[in-house]
């Protein structure tokens, strides 16, 4: 019984960390699938949103849910401005320019955060309803972790339903599959991209806020987790919501287990697995087309 409880505890911890990775990365996957744009600065949007959420709660004493909404809106708005002004100029450039541009953006976000807020890391004050323990019958577990897993599942379900059932979802799928064909059919890819970019950045913001507990929240956030976000996206497959969901959960659990049992250098297995997987399937687990 103890063994099962232990196992369940580890799984829940890993799944909740994976859920955060999913919420942050899902937008990155879709925008990369749509435009093939290598956006390394996606984590910066997560950080920006996380800061808005945490500061709104700690300094302006706004409730948890309104703060999340505020973070979503603020980050989506910022991303639209950046997309219209800067990103769009580089859609047709090579990957090198995109990599440079987004690394530059990361630095600007880091420096901006240090100047405006300060270099120290921020902590999320959980609302009392979420900060206790929940009795699952065979074990007690942190309510917040279970809340995260459920919320992540619902978000994943919602986004995949929207992908499958709505008009804009169909347009996104069509564009990911074949952008030229989609354009010739009259889909306004530019507008589509702006919308998904804003939505993806907003989701990243929520992920940044929800994950402040596990991942922490400091100016170096985007650089620290850059490799993880990219692993999730490339293992899951560009433009695949379900792929990102599975990849994120897998990575979350693996990371949790390895850090528990092999605290020094254990993450080496994650990188080794990623390399093997990408050599076996360069398009990722659920990706349809070769990137």
């Amino acid at each position, binding site marked *: 019984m103890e063994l099962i409880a232990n196992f369940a505890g580890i799984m829940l911890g890993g799944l909740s960390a994976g859920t955060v990775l999913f919420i942050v990365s899902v937008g990155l996957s879709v925008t990369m699938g749509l435009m093939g744009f290598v956006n390394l600065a996606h984590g910066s949007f997560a950080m920006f949103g996380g800061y808005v959420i945490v500061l709104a709660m700690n300094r302006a004493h706004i409730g948890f849910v309104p703060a999340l909404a505020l973070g979503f809106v603020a980050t989506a708005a910022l991303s639209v401005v950046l997309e219209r002004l800067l990103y769009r100029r580089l859609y047709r450039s090579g990957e090198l320019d*995109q*990599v440079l541009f987004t690394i530059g953006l990361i630095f600007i976000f880091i420096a901006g955060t240090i100047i405006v807020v300060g270099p120290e890391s921020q902590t999320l004050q959980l609302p009392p309803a979420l900060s206790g323990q929940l009795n699952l019958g065979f074990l007690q577990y942190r309510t917040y972790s279970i809340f995260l897993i459920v919320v992540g599942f619902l978000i994943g379900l919602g986004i995949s339903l929207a992908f499958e059932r709505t008009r804009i979802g169909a347009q996104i799928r069509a564009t990911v599959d074949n952008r030229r064909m989609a354009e010739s059919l009259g889909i306004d890819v530019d507008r589509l991209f702006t919308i998904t970019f804003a939505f993806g950045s907003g989701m990243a913001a929520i992920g940044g806020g929800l994950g402040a507990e596990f991942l922490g929240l400091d100016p170096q956030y985007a650089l620290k987790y850059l490799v993880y976000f990219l692993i999730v996206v*490339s293992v899951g497959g560009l433009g695949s919501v379900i792929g990102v969901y599975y990849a994120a959960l897998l990575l979350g659990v693996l990371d949790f287990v390895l850090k528990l049992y092999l605290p*020094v*250098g254990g993450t080496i297995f994650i990188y080794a697995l990623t*390399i093997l997987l*990408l050599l076996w399937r360069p398009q990722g687990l659920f990706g349809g087309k070769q990137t």
Partner: protein
Amino acid sequence: MSEVAAAKPVAGAGFAAHPAARVLMRRHRIRWWELIPWLAAIAYYFAFPHYLGFGAELLITVLFALSLDLALGYAGIITLGQAAFFGTGAYTVAMLAYYGIWTEPIGGLLAATLAAAVIGFASGLVLLRTTGLTLLMLTLCVTALLEQGANMARNITGGFDGLNFTITPVFGLFEFNPLFANTQYLYTLGVLFLCYAFVRTLVYSPFGQSLTGIRENILRMHAIGSPVRVRLIICYTLSAALAGIAGGLSAQTNDYVNLATLSLDRSATVLIVLILGGYGRLYGAFIGAVAYLVLEHFLAQVYPTAWQLGLGLLLVLIALFARNGILGLGETLWRRFEARRAAS
């Protein structure tokens, strides 16, 4: 082929006199301005005897950026994993010296070259099957793999705290440690010159031309029967070897190595240095390293946040407007100036 051979004597001076041939031959002739960096490096030795440690660091950065230029600038391999080879070289030198196996600098450097080349060859063999984002990811993962491996084997590598060791004198004559910065500077300059001569010869050789061809149009290179993958792997291996030399030099001049030599930070920095100077043009590495390190040395110590902000803005501007760094910008301005002079 026989027609060409038959035509040759008839044409008098032969094909060598053909204007196209003359242009092609002029391409790799040494220009007067190519001496400037080397003269500057020697002048620096006499002008700033108290900053030779910084000078050696500068030269090492040039070499590291040059190694990346070979892969990125000439062959068009977009990588964020050049630190893997830098770190391999650094750790090879460090561990050989720390365990008393080999403390002499030149032999250590050769070992570093070899080790980095082996890693470069092995990883290139599998990575270069892929392109684009996947390739970028794989180079990132290889570096992270090595970094975590070194972290895991902390009994041998010193892990997070790193290793301290001593290097014995060059040729048994010239003291080699951070107290003798003049030896270190001249030694580094010598190594850099040899590596530079190698790279310069390489990029102007038919092999180097085929690399440029691969960068510009890989499909066409396949179509004309060029062994694209083999060439890319050779280029990647050579680039890794050069990065290994840079890493080995860095370990030797500091008498110290730690995990930072294998970090993503290091890969990103060298990419920025090269881009700042201009890639695919040999001397971009020199200009970029000077611009980056001098700015960093003076700005970062005074106000690190402003340095990071400035660097970020610079990168965004370069990506958006100045496609090829300082040298590229200079070239564009020069062309404009020439055109205006021709018009008037």
